[in-house]
C-alpha cells in the first residue's frame, strides 16, 4: 500500500503544483472553478483514453509514439503558457484595477483562463496516464491485495490535492502588488521547463539529434528523482543531466516569452486606458 501511495503521489504531486499555481494566477477571474475543474476532468478522461490506447500509441511512429505524444502535449502547454503571459502583460494591470466594473475585461479574462485550463489538462494528462496504467495493472491482476493498493493510490491522490492547496495558499500570501510579477515569472519558468522536457522526449524518439551532449551531471548534488529534485523539475525545469539542446531551448523559450511580453505590452502613455 505504501509503495502504491508513493508512486501515485509522486505523479499527482507534479500536477498538483501546476494546478496550485494556475489557481493562484486566476485568483478573482469569474467562473475559473468551472474552467479549471473542466481542465482536470479532461485530463483524467484523456489519461484513461491514452491508457486504453497505450499499445497503439506506443507502436506508432516506429515505436516512438509515446515520446511524440508527450512532446506534442508539452508543446501545447508551452504555447498556452506563453499566450497567457503575453496576454496578461497586455491586459493584466487594467484587469486587476477594474475587474468587476468592465464587463469586457471579464469576458477577456475567461479567454486567458481557457488557455490555463488547457495547461491544467496537459499536466493532469501527463501524470494521470502513468497513474492509470499503474492502478489498472494492479487491479487487473492482483485482486484482493489490489484493494489495498487502490487505497494507497487514493491516499496518494489526496496528498497530491494537499500539495495543490498548499501551493495555492502559499502563493496567496504573496502581496498583491508583487503577485503579477511573481506569477508571470513562475509561468515563464514553468513553460521553459516544459519546453526542455519536450526536447527530452524528442531526443528519446531520435527526432532531435543535434547538440545531444549532456551539459552537466549534477545528480550527485540534487537528483531528479529526489523530492526536491521533482519539485524543482516541475517549477523551474530542473534537470540533473540536461543536454546542450535542452539548455538552448530552455533559454530560447524564456527569451521569446519575455520579448513578446515586452513587445506587446501597452505603451507607457496608456496608463489610464480609455474604455472603448
Amino acid at each position, binding site marked *: 500500500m505504501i509503495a502504491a501511495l508513493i508512486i501515485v503521489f509522486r505523479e499527482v504531486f507534479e500536477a498538483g503544483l501546476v494546478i496550485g499555481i494556475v489557481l493562484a494566477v486566476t485568483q478573482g477571474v469569474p467562473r475559473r472553478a468551472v474552467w479549471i475543474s473542466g481542465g482536470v476532468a479532461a485530463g483524467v478522461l484523456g489519461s484513461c483514453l491514452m491508457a486504453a490506447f497505450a499499445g497503439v500509441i506506443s507502436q506508432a511512429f*516506429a515505436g516512438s509514439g509515446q515520446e511524440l505524444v508527450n512532446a506534442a502535449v508539452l*508543446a501545447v502547454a508551452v504555447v498556452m503558457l506563453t499566450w497567457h503571459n503575453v496576454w496578461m502583460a497586455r491586459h493584466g494591470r487594467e484587469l486587476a484595477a477594474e475587474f468587476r466594473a468592465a464587463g469586457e475585461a471579464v469576458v477577456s479574462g475567461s479567454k486567458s483562463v481557457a488557455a490555463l485550463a488547457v495547461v491544467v489538462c496537459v499536466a493532469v494528462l501527463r501524470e494521470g496516464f502513468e497513474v492509470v496504467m499503474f492502478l489498472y495493472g494492479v487491479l487487473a491482476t492482483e485482486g484482493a491485495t489490489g484493494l489495498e493498493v487502490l487505497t494507497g493510490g487514493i491516499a496518494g491522490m489526496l496528498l497530491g490535492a494537499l500539495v495543490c492547496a498548499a501551493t495555492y495558499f502559499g502563493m496567496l500570501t504573496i502581496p498583491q502588488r508583487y503577485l503579477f510579477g511573481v506569477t508571470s515569472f513562475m509561468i515563464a519558468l514553468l513553460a521553459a521547463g516544459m519546453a526542455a522536457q519536450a526536447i527530452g522526449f524528442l531526443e528519446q524518439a531520435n527526432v532531435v539529434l543535434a547538440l545531444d551532449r549532456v551539459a552537466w551531471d549534477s545528480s550527485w548534488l540534487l537528483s531528479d528523482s529526489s523530492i526536491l529534485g521533482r519539485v524543482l523539475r516541475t517549477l523551474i525545469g530542473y534537470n540533473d543531466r540536461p543536454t546542450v539542446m535542452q539548455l538552448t531551448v530552455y533559454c530560447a523559450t524564456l527569451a521569446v516569452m519575455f520579448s513578446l511580453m515586452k513587445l506587446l505590452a501597452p505603451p507607457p502613455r496608456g496608463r489610464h486606458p480609455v474604455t*472603448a
Partner: protein
Amino acid sequence: MNRIAPTGLRIGLLGLGAALALTTAAIPAPGAFAQDAAQLVISVKDHKFDPAELEAPAGKPLVLRVKNLDPTPMEFESNSLRVEKVLTGNGEAVINIRPQAAGRYDFFDDFHASTTKGVLVVK
C-alpha cells in the same frame, strides 16, 4: 484592446503550428539513425529483467527492445540513460539510447522499482 487578443491568439496558433510542423517534418529520422545502432533485447518476466545485466559498446547509439512478458503494465526508466517509457502488459517497446561513455547505467521498472532492476554495462 479588442484587436490585441486575436494577435496573441494568432501568435499562439503560429507557435503551435510550428511545433507540430517541426515534429512531423522530423519523423523519418529514426530509421536512418537506427542503422548503425547496436541492437539489444531484454525481457521482463515475473517483474525480473532477463538478462539482468546487458552489455553494449561505448560511443555507439543503442536500440533496446524491451519485451514485457508480464500481464501488468510497467514503466521502463533510467535516470542515468535519460529514458522513461510506459509499456502495456504483454507489450513491447523500442528504447533509443544515445552513444554512452563506458560505465554502468542502472535501469528499473518504475512501477515495481524494488524488484525489477537491471544494469547496462557499457565498455
